[in-house]
Structure formats: C-alpha cells, structure tokens
C-alpha cells in the first residue's frame, strides 16, 4: 500500500495532471506491468513509452555495434529508436504500442533482452 502511494507521487512529477488548455488529462484504467523484472504501473491504452517516461525511464535500448543508449526520439513510430523487447518479442516500437495489463517490457541489447555480457 505504502509502495503504491510512493509511485503515485513519483508519477505526479512527469505526468501533467491539469493542463491550462486541455484541462484534466483523461486516462484509461491503471494497470500493472513489468519493466526489466520490476512491477510498475501505467494507464491502459497509453503508449508503453509514455508509461515508462512517466516513471523517468530514459534508456530503451543499447545499439548492437557500439552499445550506445537510445530512447524516445520521434514518438510517432517512425525512427525506431525506442524499440524494446515486449512480451519476449524484440524491436517493438514502444511509442506506438498501447500498454496492456501484465505486459513484460525489457530493455533491448542489440536485438535481445539479455545484457551484452550474457550474450
């Protein structure tokens, strides 16, 4: 219970609760999913990337050759910088893939969820 409250407070910082033009931001149902093995929360139907951004996640993947980090860049499914391993499938564009309850989201190393030292 206490844990959940902390999450909510953390989310306040990145989420816009009330907007001067758009008013109160409407969201779907609050759901749990896992990010790199950790249980976290987001709103059903929002892009996975939005839920992660609300948690302060910046790095979505590391490139295959140089192992350099990548995150959200275009946010409309065009650049593929934000791809991650979702439910075991690599190269999922998290900025246009809606969040569903119980999803497993993992940082992508090259094209795998295994960190490079284990590959």
């Amino acid at each position, binding site marked *: 219970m206490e844990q959940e409250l902390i999450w909510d407070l953390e989310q306040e910082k990145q989420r*816009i609760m009330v907007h*001067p*033009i*758009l008013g109160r931001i409407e969201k779907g149902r609050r759901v749990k999913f896992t990010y790199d093995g950790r249980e976290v929360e987001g709103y059903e139907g929002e892009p996975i990337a*939005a839920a992660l951004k609300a948690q302060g996640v910046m790095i979505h993947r590391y490139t295959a050759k140089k192992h350099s*980090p*990548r*995150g959200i860049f275009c946010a409309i*499914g065009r650049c593929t*910088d934000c791809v991650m391993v979702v439910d075991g499938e690599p190269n999922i564009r998290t900025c246009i893939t809606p969040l569903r309850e119980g999803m497993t989201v993992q940082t992508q190393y090259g094209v795998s969820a295994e960190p490079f030292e284990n590959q």
Partner: protein
Amino acid sequence: MPLPERNDMKRYDLIVVGAGPSGLSAAIEASKRGVKTIVFDENARPGGQLFKQIHKFFGSKEHKAKIRGFVIGQQLLDEAGKAGVEVVLNATVIGLYQDKEIVVKTGDTVHHYKGDSIIIATGASENMVTFDGWTLPGVIGAGAAQTLMNLHGIKPGKRVLMLGSGNVGLVVSFQLMQAGCEVAALVDAAPEIGGYGVHAAKVARTGVPFYLSHTIVKAEGTDHVTGVTIAAVDDHFRFIPGTEKHFDVDTICVAVGLSPMSQLLKMAGCRMSDDPKRGGQVPIIDGHGETSIPGLFAAGDVSGIEEASSAMIEGRQAGIYAAEFLGFISKTEMDNGEEKLDAALDGLRQGMFAPKNRGKNIEKTEEGIDISRNLLCRGFIGDDEIERFPGVTHKAGVHPVIECTQNIPCNPCQDACAMHCIMVGKVITALPAVDPSLKCADCGMCVASCSGQAIFLVNEDCGDGTATVTLPYEFLPVPDEGTRGRALGRNGQEVCDAEVVKIRTSPAYDHTTLLTMSVPKEFAMKARFFKANA
C-alpha cells in the same frame, strides 16, 4: 509469424493515403459527391498532427481562425463521419505501382487495392541535425514533445533547450511551458527568427532567452542528456571559439524544419522537383494538384510545406478535382465548388511569410513601416520601436494596444471588437490599426481572439499614479486577484512591481485567461507579463 496472405484485390473510385487534415478534407469532398472513397493511415488515430496543436489558428473566419487545432481536428472527424468516409487505421501504404495499384500493410498481412484515382496526402516528416551526442536519450524531435505532452499528458522533460526558431520551435516552446516544463533557451543558427514574430514575442516576454546565430556544439551526458553546450556561429555557420555557453537541461528539442514525405509519388514515377521553397523533393503538380500521372493527385505538405489550414483547403480541392476526373461532377460543378476555396487559399498565401517570399530579406511592412530588428534577432519588439505600428495608439481610459507588427494572414481581432475600434480591412495581411476616437468596452474579446497573443488592454493612467495592463495568460496556476509580483517587459526582464487586480475567464475566451495587473503608470507601455513573487 503467419505468411502474408494475398486477398482478392479490392477496387475503389478513390484511394486517399493519409488521414491528416489534407487527406480527410479530400475524402469528405469526394464522398459528398458520391465517390466511393477509402482512406489509409499508418497511425492508430486519424487527424494527423491536428490533435497535437493546442494553440489558436491564424487566418480569417473561413480558415477557422482563432479555433484551436485539436478542436478543428474533431470538427473534421465529425464531418468525415457524416460524409460516410471509410478510414482504415494502422494501415501503412508500402507501395504505389502502375495503374494506381497500392499495397497496404496491416499487422503482418499485406493487401492490394486499386483506385481509379489516388490522392497522396502523406504530409511531412521532421528534419534533423547532427551534433556530438545527438543520439543520446533526451534529444527529441519537437513533434515528439508535442505528442508526449499534448496527446499523452507526459512532460517531455523538466528543463528543455529548443533548437530552431521556426513556427514549430516557437509554438512548441510555448506549449512546453504550458505543460509545466522550463525552457532554458531558444537557439537558432540563422541570424533571424524564422517564425512569426508574435509567436516569438509571447515566448520572450516570459523570460526565455533567444540565441540567434548560435547552434549546439554538443549534448552532454553519458547515458542520457544532462546538459548542452551552444556557441555562436559566423556567416559560414562555423563555430566562433570562446563563445560557448552551457545550460543544465535534461532535454534537447530539435525543430529544424519539415520535409515532404513524397516517397510514394517518386516510386510511382511522378515527375519530381527539388524545391527548397517547398521543403525538398516534391511532385510537379498542375493547378489542380494533379501529378504527371493522370488521376494521381497530391495535397497538403507532401506537395510543399505550409501549415494545416492550407493543407485542409488543398485537400478539399483535390477531392473535388478527383470527383471531376472520375466523372462524378462536371467541369462547371468543379469550378463552382472550388472558386471559394481558391480565394481562401490565396488569402493564406499572402504576407511576408508566404511560400513565395521564403528566403527573401523583407525590411519593411506592406504599409512601409520598418520591421522591428529586435523582433527578428532577439524575439521581442524594443520599447523604442513599438510606437511606429498602427495598432499602438493612446487615449484616456482602457484601450487596445495591438503589438502585431508583421504582415501575416490573420484578422479575428477585427471581428472580435463589437465597438469597431480595430481595423484590418480587406487585405487580410494588413497590420491591425486601432482607432482611438472610438470607445473601448473593455470586453477583452480582442485579447482572447488574437492567436498571436499580441493584444493588450491598457489604461495608461488610472488617476492614482497607476496604470492597468490586461494580458492573455494561458499558464497554470492562474494567480489570484491580489497576488503581488513583478511585471516583465517585452524582453522578459523584470521592469517593476505589479499586483493582479482582475482575473477574467469566459467560455468565449476559449481557455485564455485575461489577467489584469496594476503597475506604476510610467510602465504602462513597458509591462507585458506577470510573474508572481516566489
């Protein structure tokens, strides 16, 4: 993964690629004329970028001026629904072949369709510039910032540096502040601001510094952005050593222009041209938006970068042209339908920011007034420059002061004033003039109707040594009446003490709050923004 299956090819009178402002408008007009139309869009929602536009649009009534972009988007969807337009989402058109056959990918399957005519309305994609560290998480496109904050309610960052002073860079900087982010600076390698002066001025007056003739040296950070270094550039865009400046930011937002997404047209074999005034590779089209391939049309940003208002008109015209091409209407019916649209489009293509004037060095307004150099180079009009514009007049009592100093196609202020104090006239790009002999009712409608947030209601002398300034305020929290703070000048610097004496909201103002502050009367023509004391 299942193998792609090939279904029987489906045929439509008209296939539209792209369900943005242009594509939807095209489909609406064609459907209304009995044309069997289908629209494909790769996104999960229709409307293109309209739903990310939360500012009031420019233009006149016929262009839906002073209505916010996302509201126009909803109106367009409603109209498409009524017209019975069929829109297929999450459907990427991956090929356009001979005889107007297209290939559409949905999920893991591919389908073929054939159109008797096709309208390509694929819009544009963002340009990028590279600099050290540009691939770090935290470097994002301006479109990404709009998507995150205006569609998904997520702040793109806490402290942001904006690169690019075109309208996108200026508008998104303002929107970032509306979302509760801090904008550390606005930077552009060009020596002059690319977008509308009014968009720059509303950002500058909140205190955001502009660095023209500057660009990014490097994005700092190992795993993600923790800062940025910029430096001045010379006439050849080379860094000038010793001019480096550092900012602590967690986000760098890049807004360096758009390019037409014309790949499908090129693939189909249309004659193309490389036209910098249109934003890059564009199809060569005739006066009816028809490419070199009969029955294949292009509309909106794909045929030349403009903005959503003109894209919607071009789309409507393309829909009418396609209906005529297909024989659903006669040539006379076509001409009747598009005459008004032609005039509306022509109106939007006037003024100093018109496509035909891109790259030109314009020093005087159409009225022959010197353009503010400060506005072009620093983002705000100098206190010594403001008096020469026709919207700035003086009289006893409350009166409008219109700081609109460039010829842009926009006139809602004229209609907003029931007392007829404000005059733009027949030429929609003319600078608004204020007639000081007419009475101002202090209704605030002009302030709220100005898409550029360039109108203030000023009482220069309240009789007790103070003056009042009413300004548009679109931020949260809205300060309460009685709140004390500092007035900021046009340049965002503090000029004097100020107290909020009136807060007005109204459905007619459409989410623009009118904040009236009291300042010492010598600052009546200098104080243009309010900052509450911490």
